[in-house]
């Protein structure tokens, strides 16, 4: 009973946050609602005994992605002005997109063969089984994903470098000293 109540509370939390992300007029409130939504997801994972997944969600989405989003928002001007931060264009097109996504997800959820119960066996430390699976059964996808991440990192560095663009002139202005001045 208590489990069900907590699950519905967490689900309500998540959905409320997600709805506020879309409906809020102020983009900083959208980012803040995203935080609420993420925390709701963390609680749902924790209720499902997926402790590692819950904490990975917290460190990746709240600690990484949300902080980056907040950073990007705060470095832009006039963010409290809804018409420049949250403009709505082409309502028909967005309605069609949302409808297609909704129908697709809805039928996937209905048709998917969900595994209802993990059985009665005792659940050991979840990190052990994740580590075993990553280094035996899913080794190739794991390595491909890590190479992809590395490519992303190097790509970001290449794009952010200034020396490649302006070869002539004063190249002494390294990224760090410029950052130092702007912060």
């Amino acid at each position, binding site marked *: 009973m208590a489990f069900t109540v907590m699950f519905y509370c967490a689900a309500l939390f998540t959905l409320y946050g997600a709805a506020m992300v879309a409906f809020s007029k102020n983009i*900083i409130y959208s980012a803040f609602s995203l935080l609420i939504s993420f925390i709701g997801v963390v609680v749902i994972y924790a209720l499902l005994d997926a*402790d*590692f997944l819950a904490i990975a969600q917290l*460190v990746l989405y*709240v600690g990484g992605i949300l*902080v980056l989003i907040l950073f990007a928002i*705060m470095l832009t001007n006039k963010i409290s002005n809804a018409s420049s931060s949250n403009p709505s264009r082409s309502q028909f097109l967005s309605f069609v997109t949302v409808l297609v996504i909704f129908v697709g997800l809805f039928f996937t959820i209905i048709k998917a063969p969900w595994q209802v119960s993990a059985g009665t066996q005792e659940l050991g430390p979840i990190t052990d089984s994740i580590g075993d699976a990553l280094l035996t059964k899913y080794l190739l996808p794991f390595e491909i994903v890590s190479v992809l991440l590395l490519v992303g990192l190097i790509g970001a560095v290449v794009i952010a470098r200034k020396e490649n663009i302006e070869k002539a002139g004063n190249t002494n202005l390294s990224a760090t000293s410029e950052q130092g001045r702007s912060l």
Partner: protein
Amino acid sequence: MWYLANYLEKNYAVSINGQESAWLIYLIVAIASALVMLGFASLFAGLASFVERRIAGRIMARVGPNRVGPQGLFQFVADGLKLIMKEDLIPNGADRFLFKIAPYFVFAGMLGTFVVLPFGANIVAANMDVGIFYIISITALVVVGIILGGWASNSKWSMFGGLRSAAQIVSYEIPLALSILVVVLLSGSLSTQGIISAQGGLPWDWFIFHSPFAFIAFFIYFVSALAEGNRTPFDLPEAESELVAGYCTEYSGFRFVVFFFAEWANLWIMSAIAVICFLGGWRVPFISVEESTSSWGIILLGLAIFMVKTLALVVVVIQLRWTLPRLRLDQMMNLCWKYLVPGSFVCILGTMTWMVLIDWNSMIGLVLRVVVFAGAFMLLAYYIYRIRFNYMIDRDNYKKMTGKDMWYPPYRLP
């Protein structure tokens, strides 16, 4: 919460899982342990503020607070009362909702770490399987709180402070996590109790002396933790001489207390994690893990050992704050990305190689650990000798200049 209940069942043979009202018992136990942790954190934060001000006074050759209570011990109570009774000002152009809610995030992120911080052999709120990873992740809430507070204040000092703080915490989180990964490699466990149990009571059984790489990893952890806690030499987010008070410039009254409360409680958190991961935690010499919960005497002895080690580190952190100048922002970023991050990768690879080549339980492993310990001990002895040397010179100069003895011996407060 579930962990706590499991823990109770395992250790005290209380059968609560089958009962209908199990959730009520879970809830009561969780609230009780949360209140205990809150009480500990607030008492520690208050006393740490007093000790810090006294040490600062001594280092700056002034007296420091010594009026309220014996030796000024109750100064923090007086300060707290004063700040609670102040008006809770909200600036005119501020975003009221976010401005009000931001301190709670900082507070929740700080107090959340106490859930998995152990104090003794079985004194811990929840022995999670992923404890140390949880500690790293929950700091994310502090960052969010600081950014929101800085932005919502609608002041450029707050904004700069918030951005600086976020940049700093996000950057230093990487060497911090990587240096803790060294410990996770050595212990094969992410739980805080598991990490402590994998170490021993004697100094050469601690992870810090496992190899030169682990020794370096400890210092990488320590520097990164200083930066994460916004302590000098990394106190750019609240640099008084540039930014008034950084992200808490516009805060007053109780919300201001919450920010500073989190800062001082963070002293305990960073030192306790260092003790858990590198300095043997609550392990008592010559007593195995199985025996360490056998009697209350041993548990209390472990608690005392843990407290002494942690408080020693706290004092070192406080002394660092009042001796070192502040780094420039680009110096801080250079230190993190050019030295600490590559350094921690080298530490991880070196520790892995060391673990493959030399077995922990073998004789040669023990000898090497003793050698590393002896080297570190000599460094420490030399450090203490140099401090004493400088102190003697100062004392002689003072006597020559004024004709009087220095105002008090080092072991007594004025």
